[in-house]
Every structure is written in C-alpha cells, then in structure tokens.
C-alpha cells in the first residue's frame, strides 16, 4: 500500500499544507473580511520555525509552536488597522502587509538568508504530521462553525449593520477571525519549512497568495471541506495535464474562469447546496417560493 503511494507523497504534502493555508484564508472570508494576509502570516511562521530550529537549536516542534504564536500575534496586530477598512481596501492593505514581510525577509540577510534563501532545515514534518495538522485544523473550524462564533461570523459577513443591531460586536469577531487566520497560517508555514529543506522569500509573495485564493474560490468559501477540495484539484491538475506541457497554465486559468462562471460558490459548496435543495424538494418544502404565502 505505502509502496503505491510513495512516489506521490510529495503531492500529498502539498495538498495538506496548501489546505492549511486555504483554511486560514477561508476563515477571514467567512467573517466577511477581504484580507489576503495569509501568505504573510505563513512567512512569519515558516521563518520563525526555521531560524529557531537551525540557528538556536530549538526542537522542530517548539519552533513550529513559536511560529504559530507569532502568526497569531501578527493576526491580532493586523486586525487593528484592517478593522477600519472595508472590501477592496482591506485587500490592498493586507497585500501591503505581505509585501512588508517579504521585504523584511530580503533585507535582514543575516537572520533570514535574504535573497539567497534559508537552507539546511531538518525535514522534521512527515506526511502524517501534515495530515494530522490539517485534520485537527478542519475539526476546529467545523466545531467553532457549529456554535455562536459561526453564527456571528455568518451574520457579520452578510450584513454587518444588521449583525450589530442584533447585539453582535463586529470588531470582536473581526479580531477573532484574524487571530485564527494568523495562527493557522503560522502553523502551516512552520510545517512547510520543516518539509521543504529550504525557504525563499518569493514563495510567500504571489505564489502562495494566488494559490490559496484560487483554492478557496475553486473549492468553496463557506464549508470547511471546500478548501481541501480546491487545493486537491489545484495540486493534482498540473499532474493530470502533464502531457499538455506548455498549455498547462492556460488550462488552469480556463478552469478557474469556468468554475467561477458556473459554480460561483465553488465546486464543493455548490454541490452541497444542490443536495440541500433536493432534500427540501423531496420533503415537499420547495413550493414555488413567491406563491408560498
């Protein structure tokens, strides 16, 4: 069994780490914030874990733990200025945060290796570690989605003034979503470092940012499964289309456009919604809506 999977293990690693990043992105979307700061948090977590482990002799797990905490801290700090902004302005401000982190990594060469990258990181995170981290994160998000936090996030995303008029303090949940997003991205950033032997600043610029956004849009923004489905598609597609060689990128772009046009809520969320509607119809609850009263 393991022999069959062995050549594909790097792909599984990519799926698990990518899903972690996508979950970090999805949680701010769920709270109605248009932030793309995830790759910045990930960079902080990754470099913190790598530097502490390689240069200061930390146990890899301790390094990753500190990276997670630093990601959480960055989330908290960033939520203060971003709470005053809305929509596309939040996106621009969070993009600026990512650029600042990347610039910082490039500038402080002695600490981070600068443009040459940071190398010789022990490969401490096995595929199983990554899988369990992803499962634990998904479980946490499913659990918090079931209670009052999930309800508050949904209300704030759909209509902030109405949410406030029902007693929900928008700032509190805004801060909470950023703290969670930062911690999750910091965790998977640290694990990413422990998987890849080396880090470069550029990978945390547009590569992770765009990959993460695409995964969430493709898979689904609202469910916890959506990011996993989206990431899996994005990781496997280039392999499936390998024979197409040069056309791979074109196919990739085309697929994103098609999904956005025909499955606006993402592959997974759209299917779930259709199933829900069919269940209602079967229970005789799907009357012609406008004639219902």
């Amino acid at each position, binding site marked *: 069994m393991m022999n069959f999977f062995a050549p594909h293990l790097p792909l599984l690693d990519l799926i698990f780490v990518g899903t972690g990043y996508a979950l970090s992105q999805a949680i701010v979307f769920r709270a109605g914030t248009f932030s793309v700061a995830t790759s910045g948090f990930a960079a902080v977590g990754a470099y913190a874990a790598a530097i502490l482990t390689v240069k200061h002799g930390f146990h890899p797990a301790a390094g990753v733990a500190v990276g997670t905490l630093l990601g959480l801290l960055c989330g908290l700090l960033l939520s203060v200025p971003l709470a005053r902004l809305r929509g596309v302005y939040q996106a621009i401000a969070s993009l600026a945060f990512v650029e600042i982190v990347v610039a910082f990594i490039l500038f402080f060469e002695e600490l981070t290796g600068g443009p040459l990258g940071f190398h010789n990181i022990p490969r401490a995170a096995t595929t199983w570690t990554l899988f369990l981290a992803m499962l634990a994160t998904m479980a946490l998000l499913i659990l918090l989605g079931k209670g009052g936090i999930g309800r508050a996030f949904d209300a704030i995303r759909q209509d902030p*003034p109405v949410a406030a008029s029902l*007693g929900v303090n928008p700032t509190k949940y805004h801060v*909470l979503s950023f703290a969670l997003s930062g911690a999750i991205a910091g965790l998977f950033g640290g694990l990413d470092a422990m998987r890849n032997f080396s880090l470069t600043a550029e990978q945390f610029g547009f590569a992770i940012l765009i990959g993460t956004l695409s995964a969430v849009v493709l898979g689904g923004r609202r469910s916890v499964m959506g990011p996993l489905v989206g990431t899996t598609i994005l990781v496997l597609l280039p392999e499936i289309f390998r024979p197409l060689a040069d056309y791979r990128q074109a196919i990739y772009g085309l697929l994103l456009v098609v999904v956005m046009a025909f499955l606006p809520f993402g592959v997974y969320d759209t299917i779930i919604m259709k199933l*829900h509607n069919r269940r209602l119809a079967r229970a005789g*609850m799907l009357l012609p*809506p406008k004639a219902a009263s």
Partner: protein
Amino acid sequence: MSSLVLTGVGKRFGGLQAVSPFDMEIARGKITGLIGPNGAGKTTVVNLITGVYKLSQGSIRFGDIDLTEATRHEVARAGLARTYQTIRLLPDATVVANVMIGMYRHQRASLLSQLFALPSSRAETARFRDEVFHLLERFGMTRYAEYPAGALSYGDQRRVEMMRALALKPEVLLLDEPVAGINEVEAAKLGDIFRALATEGKGMAVLLIEHNMRFVTNLCDYVYVLDSGTLISQGSAEQVVNDPVVVKAYLGDDEDA
C-alpha cells in the same frame, strides 16, 4: 416599569436640522405610535435610538441605562430590538439561522467553549434552536424552517424579520412600518401579536412606525406625529387624528388617506 425616554433629542446633518429637538416616552406595556408623512424623519428617530446615528442634541435613557452614546450592539444588548423599513435578512441563510442570530444576546457560553464546541456551548445552541422553533410556531412558519430566507414571499420575510427581533427577547421593540405591503387580514393578525407582546407577561415597550392610519388608530395607546422633522402633535390616537394641525400636515384635504 422602565420606559425608553428621549429628552431633547435632535439630529443635524451638516447645516440641515433633520429632526428638531423633541421629547418622547415609549412606555412598557403600551404600543406607542410614530406617524408622519414621507420624509418626516420617522426612520431617523429609530436610527437615533438604535445608535446608527449619533445624537446632535439631547439624551436617551432606558431605565438606569444611558443610551445617548451607545453603539448599535450596545443598544441591542441593553434590550432594544428593531425591524427595518426595507427588509434586511441574511438572504442565503435558512429561516432558522436568521432567527438564531437574534438569540445572540442570550449567549453565555465562553469563547473557549464555543471554539471547541464543548458541551456547554452545544447545549446552549440546542436550547436556542428549541426557542426558535417556538417562535416559528407562533408565526406559523415551521414548514419554512430550513428554507433560505431570501426565497420566501415578502410577507413571510417580514415575519422572519419580526421573529429575529423577538428572539432577542427585547424589552423595547421598534417596528419600522411592519405591515407595509401586507394585506389587511394579515396585518390585523400581526396587530394582535403586537398587542399581545405589549401586554403579555412583563410586557414590552413597542414603538410602531406606520403609514396606515387605520392600523395606528386601532392599535396605538399613544401617538406622536412628526412632520418635516418637527414634532407637531401627540396624544391618544383619537386626539391626534382630530388635531387640525395633523389633519393639515398629514392628511391634507383627503379624508381617507
């Protein structure tokens, strides 16, 4: 018996005095009416009470609580709930989910308990769900429980909005034209519910903003009349309707308006 008391409340937008300073009392156990022609400033008054706008003058008190500077969510936590003139539901969420959000004020489970869905948080959610279904029953909406709110008919959406406000178990209920676009039979049914809300149990203080004069005169214990941002009359429904100033400003010459 705490009432909502507005003292000298006024609102300026730049140089424009949108609402001139006025006093108002919304008493518990009573239905207070607020009427006036279009653009009189009725909704502005609700927005001032609920913290959407900051007051330019005056103060608002609810019992011992000073709401003059309160933000929207503080107003809601103090026990004031409102509905909107144009319906504002979460259209993609189910009817149950919409009403559940109204229960937020009664949430006691700690953040940690909610994060990990510990038993205390789960028990609370289950209890809220039960209460929501009681409300659905009262409004005859049980069959639409799992239906996306945005797909309901207009009248049913109004009911969902009302249930959401009631889920707060408010002490003050502010209804901004709750029967607009609803036929008279259905409106009368809602009127009975409003009456019951004001008088049942501890009783709520209900503020009813309305165009429909017959509905107001049948239902309200006390009526305020606003015209161009100025309070021009107040008293029992009968007094107000027969007040020549009101007739001139609001009803014009047309007797059945």
